[in-house]
């Protein structure tokens, strides 16, 4: 089986996301898109971006141009393991973006994702992200940021004092705010110093069984749950 990971077009990446990723949505902003080919057949894409939060690197003492987010792994049936595919894409990303020191990625428990692919790739588990505001509009769950963006670009503008009231006025009278889910956060350091720094933030992996934790060989904190630490620049 031949496996090729190489830069791909926006259209190819979008095709993979729309067909093979649960979100069926391309992330916004600057994206590095790697296509995946097995035996010359296009089977998906791995996409990196700046992430939705401009302060993504702050907790790790990093500037925006030193950190990126693995935003999509969209694959159809494949022979290689996902961690193998992601690892190869990281190699390329590192080569083409030598200034990046840390990759971050999130696994959504709402989708029953615990981050198995990151665990298999020996990523560092860094606990859960803070829950964001989310809304139910026309029966669909929508992130607060997406709703505010929708409001901004919508032809109908009102004097509503917040996005929820605007949505109730314009989109769906039954729109409501719901408690957003927090996501599992995984880190992949790209240099030795960064590995040393973020290893100190390592927490035991969440297991597929809700509520239980699994220790990592490299964590050295078996069975211990840490509160979210704050990184110091070394």
């Amino acid at each position: 089986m031949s496996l090729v990971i190489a830069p791909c077009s926006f259209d190819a990446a979008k095709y993979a996301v729309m067909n093979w990723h649960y979100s069926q949505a391309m992330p916004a902003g600057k994206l590095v898109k790697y296509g995946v080919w097995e035996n010359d057949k296009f089977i998906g894409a791995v996409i990196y971006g700046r992430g939705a939060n401009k302060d993504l690197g702050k907790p790790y003492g990093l500037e925006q141009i030193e950190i990126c987010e693995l935003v999509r792994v969209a694959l159809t049936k494949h022979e290689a393991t996902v961690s193998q595919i992601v690892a190869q894409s990281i190699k390329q990303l590192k080569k083409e973006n030598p200034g990046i020191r840390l990759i971050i990625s999130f696994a959504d428990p709402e989708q029953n994702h615990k981050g198995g692919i990151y665990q298999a790739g020996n990523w560092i588990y860094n606990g859960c992200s803070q829950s964001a505001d989310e809304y139910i509009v026309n029966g669909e769950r929508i992130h607060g940021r997406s709703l505010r963006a929708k409001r901004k670009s919508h032809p109908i503008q009102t004097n509503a004092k917040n996005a929820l009231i605007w949505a109730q006025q314009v989109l769906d009278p039954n729109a409501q705010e719901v408690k957003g889910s927090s996501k599992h956060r995984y880190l992949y350091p790209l240099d030795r110093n960064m590995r040393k720094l973020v290893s100190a933030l390592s927490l035991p992996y969440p297991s597929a069984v809700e509520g239980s934790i699994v220790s990592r060989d490299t964590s050295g904190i078996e069975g211990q749950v840490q509160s979210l630490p704050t990184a110091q620049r070394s």
Partner: protein
Amino acid sequence: MKLETVTIDSLILDPQNARKHSKRNLDAIAASLNKFGQRKPIVVHNGVVIAGNGTLEAAKLLGWTEIAVSQCPSDWDAETAKAYALADNRSSELAEWDQITLSKQLDELSDLGWSIDLLGFDKIELPDFKPEDAEQPRLDQSASNMCPQCSFEWRVGKKGEIEPV
């Protein structure tokens, strides 16, 4: 709606049918009838088929001798029958496929051993995307700016300094 079974010879294909059935279409209908049997009646007005002409032709190809029909109400005139025939064809034509759901369902059935051809679909072909030489954006650099006066191009560096591009 009352269903009845009639001999195929007693039915007449609509000579004014505005829908044409290609060989591929008839093969797909025949394959479906063969696999699933007739699950919907064809609609008949005074012995003429006004909905289901393709089904009748396919049944003939399969050598069937009888077919289930639904008769139009007895007070329908030729004009009403013609209008219904057009509306029946047009209303199904106006529906659209949800390509993602369709592709998933075809994939699932294909995995379970169903032949996609039997369902009237071509083999699922993925677009032929190739690796690209096109340069990807750099995530380790901020966006560059250009001075409108002197065209000097610069970006903000890691420590906030101005870096020429």
